[in-house]
């Protein structure tokens, strides 16, 4: 089971690859759309990459509730099996 720090680092890697977000900016309080300038299509790509990397499934209605990096981290922590 990866630690919270591992999850944050993994997420930061995905954000950098998909949306060009500097890893240092990928902190829990950041909003994907308001702070990191991630658009809705990129959110779909990020979700797919998260599913691959962490072995979780993100249904569309759950994805709509993931607003911040912290939201994504807790979703991954809760749903990893």
């Amino acid at each position: 089971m990866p630690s919270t720090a591992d999850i944050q680092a993994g997420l930061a890697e995905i954000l950098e690859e998909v949306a060009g977000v500097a890893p240092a900016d990928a902190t829990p309080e950041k909003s994907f759309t308001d702070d990191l300038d991630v658009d809705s299509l990129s959110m779909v790509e990020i979700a797919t990459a998260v599913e691959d990397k962490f072995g979780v499934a993100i249904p569309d209605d759950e994805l709509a509730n993931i607003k911040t990096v912290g939201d994504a981290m807790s979703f991954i922590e809760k749903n990893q099996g």
Partner: protein
Amino acid sequence: MSTPTADVVVTGLGATTPLGGDVASTWDALLAGRSGVSRLTDDWAKDFPAQLVARLTTEPAEVLDRVRIRRLDRSQQVAVIAAEEAWRDAAGADSGVDPLRVAVVFGTGIGGAVTLLDQDDILEAKGPKRVSPFTIPMLMPNGPAAAVGLAVGARAGVHAPVSACASGAEAIRWGLDLLRLDRADMVVVGGTEACVHPLPMAGFSAMRAMSTRNDEPHRASRPFDKGRDGFVLGEGAAALVLERADAATARGARIHARLAGAGGTSDGYDLVAPHPEGEGAGRAITAAIRDAGLTAADIGHVNAHATSTPIGDTAEAAAIRDAIGDHPLVTATKSQTGHLLGAAGALESVFTILALREQLVPATANLDDPDDDAAVQALDIVRRDARKATFSAALNDSFGFGGHNMALVFTTA
């Protein structure tokens, strides 16, 4: 607002091509007689009848950031690279122009076909959930125009003519119209193509349109030559910035040339074959010269569409001879760049403008033995070395499958 005039000038040029990553390196390589053509080394190409392509010298990933590379089809990447160079060249960002008065017209022949095919592979192999959410914006034929619009912040309108190999030239004609109609103050125009992939290669091959001179890549594209056997597929993009002359002069912009006139017609003859005497092509040429307020005698240079197909080149030669005469210095630069399809008219307009500016007509490579056809024989086609000449007006023509004919007349600034 300035008083609109019919006088439109070119204040910016950009290109990324099989000869160079920008306008200067492309022009230098053209004058040096370099060929952009090479033989495909990919496994899939081994059994293909035509294995030649003219690839970019500079990969888009060396120029654009990773996010834009991910989100844009290759045809959109090169469009943005060429347009950003043209916009910088025109000092567009410092021009004070209102973004609400900036428009884009950018054409493509094939569009995001490679994205379509790659994503179909993913769909077949992994299912619909793995298809990229960027599939549609990457494959739509207005995608390059839209991407350029974002890059320059254009908000007066973004347009995408689709007329096969005449698309780039048609974009320039639309740009001229927008400025004459006062629908914009600056227009970024151009064309783009990047469709090197087995399916387009197989499709053009099935039409018997491509050269199969696989063992001699540099000698394969040979417009007007007796031994020509088809075109070589090229990739790249070119862009121009257009504005009205009074506004350009008022802001102290450097003016490369005037876009003096344009003409467009359709053959109404066959879906893909050109009219054998170039009837519609000739009418487009005549219309462009008249639109420029000139006569045929004024045209000193023609950058021909001449793709190196057996029937296309003779039909065009007839059109040039009949509509203009035997006096202009003709060149066919696809002999070195290959055929950039939807980008061809834009790239060849850049070459036409540079030839005007430098009073120097690049040579047609590989024209060892001109076709016996009477019209080809009548033309003064520049071969072996670039030729110095004095001329104040030059014409670029472009034709596309579908019977599209475009001609553009440029004059010295």
